[in-house]
């Protein structure tokens, strides 16, 4: 559309100028062949030099530059990926270590607890055994004492009563009869106490 308008304007302008200025300037300078050869000659020279220098010197440099940048960026991305992988690996390792140490700590704790419990149990068992022994010993002593004391008391009672009778009556009484009496009495006492 734009081009059409421009060309249309151009054509009308051209028509106008050709009629107005035809006599004055001889139409379009472009169609004057005076300098055509010169223009062709200089076009070939300048464009040729431009083409050769661009092809041989400048464009390879630019293309090189672009290639280096591309490869460098790719390289950098690769290294970044690698480093990321490495860091991920390290994170995994670290987590594993933490998990391991946690488990270890737990097992240590359990071990220690068991050891302590064991120790406590052992010590308690030893203590209980000691206590039992002591109690048994004391009980035995007590029972010994009890059984002994009865006889001793009887004996003492018999002796004392024999002495008393001797003092009171002035004669010797058969010690065995006295002992029998004392025994009877202590039995009655025991029975009475038990009742």
């Amino acid at each position, binding site marked *: 559309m734009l081009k059409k308008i421009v060309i249309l304007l151009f054509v009308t302008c051209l028509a106008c100028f050709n009629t107005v200025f035809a006599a004055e300037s001889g139409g379009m300078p472009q169609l004057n062949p005076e300098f055509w*050869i010169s223009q062709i000659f200089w076009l070939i020279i300048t464009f040729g030099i431009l083409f050769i220098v661009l092809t041989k010197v400048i464009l390879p440099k630019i293309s090189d530059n672009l290639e280096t940048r591309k490869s460098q960026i790719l390289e950098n991305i690769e290294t970044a990926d690698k480093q990321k992988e490495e860091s991920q690996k390290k994170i995994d390792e670290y987590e594993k270590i933490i998990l391991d140490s946690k488990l270890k700590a737990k097992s240590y704790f359990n071990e220690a607890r068991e050891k302590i419990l064991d120790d406590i149990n052992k010590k308690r068992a030893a203590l209980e055994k000691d206590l039992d022994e002591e109690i048994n010993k004391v009980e035995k002593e007590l029972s010994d004492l009890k059984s002994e004391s009865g006889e001793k008391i009887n004996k003492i009672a018999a002796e004392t009563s024999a002495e008393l009778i001797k003092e009171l009556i002035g004669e010797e009484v058969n010690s065995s009869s006295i002992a029998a009496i004392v025994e009877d009495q202590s039995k009655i006492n025991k029975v009475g106490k038990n009742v």
Partner: protein
Amino acid sequence: MASNPMYQFNVYRIGPEIKLGSVDISFTNASLFMVISSLAILIIFNLGAKKKTLIPDKLQLLSELSYSFVAKMISDTAGSKAKPYFSFIFSLFMFVLFCNMFGMIPYAFTVTSHIIVTFMLAAFIFVGVTIIGFMKHGLGYLKLFVPSGVPMVLLPLIVVIEIISYLSRPISLSVRLFANMMAGHTMMKVFGGFVISLGIIGGWLPLSFSVALTGLEILVAFLQAYVFAILTCIYLNDALNLHH
């Protein structure tokens, strides 16, 4: 004389007359601007290609973006087979673009507004593409003129039309660029003349129009260089990948 809008297209000799045999090859204002454009391209791109930093500076970015722009244009239109012709199309695009752009500077000469220059470029492209086509496909390149899926009755007509359209390629290619450049510069000159003739009261309208036209012409300068390059790619595509 200077108010003549066509005066700006006059070619005149700069310096002495140089003759090669009986042919006049004097250095003219047209030659001067060809040299300036080429030098500008070489200087800008050489500076852009000199430094090799990972993060490009402005000139480097410019040259690398132009490089990838043209590379993408070629690979999009002509495929990967056109890679050996990259530097030619790059030079062509840059040459036309810089000639067009230098023409936008006031009092500068527009090289591409001369039919002989654009025609020479187009004729070179035409001949080159035809040679490439025949070298790649031999006589099979003539199949280009016989589109597939056309009824036998229409074939003679179609072949004639195809041959005419193929032969008119250099003319259409050169006239498109030349006419666009000349029309734009003529219009700008005409509106510039109106500014003077309408004076301080009425001159503002053509002046603002002139400003707008300058913007449009810069766009056209780029667009025509792009069209010239992309049409070259399309012709090259016809020669390299024969599929009709």
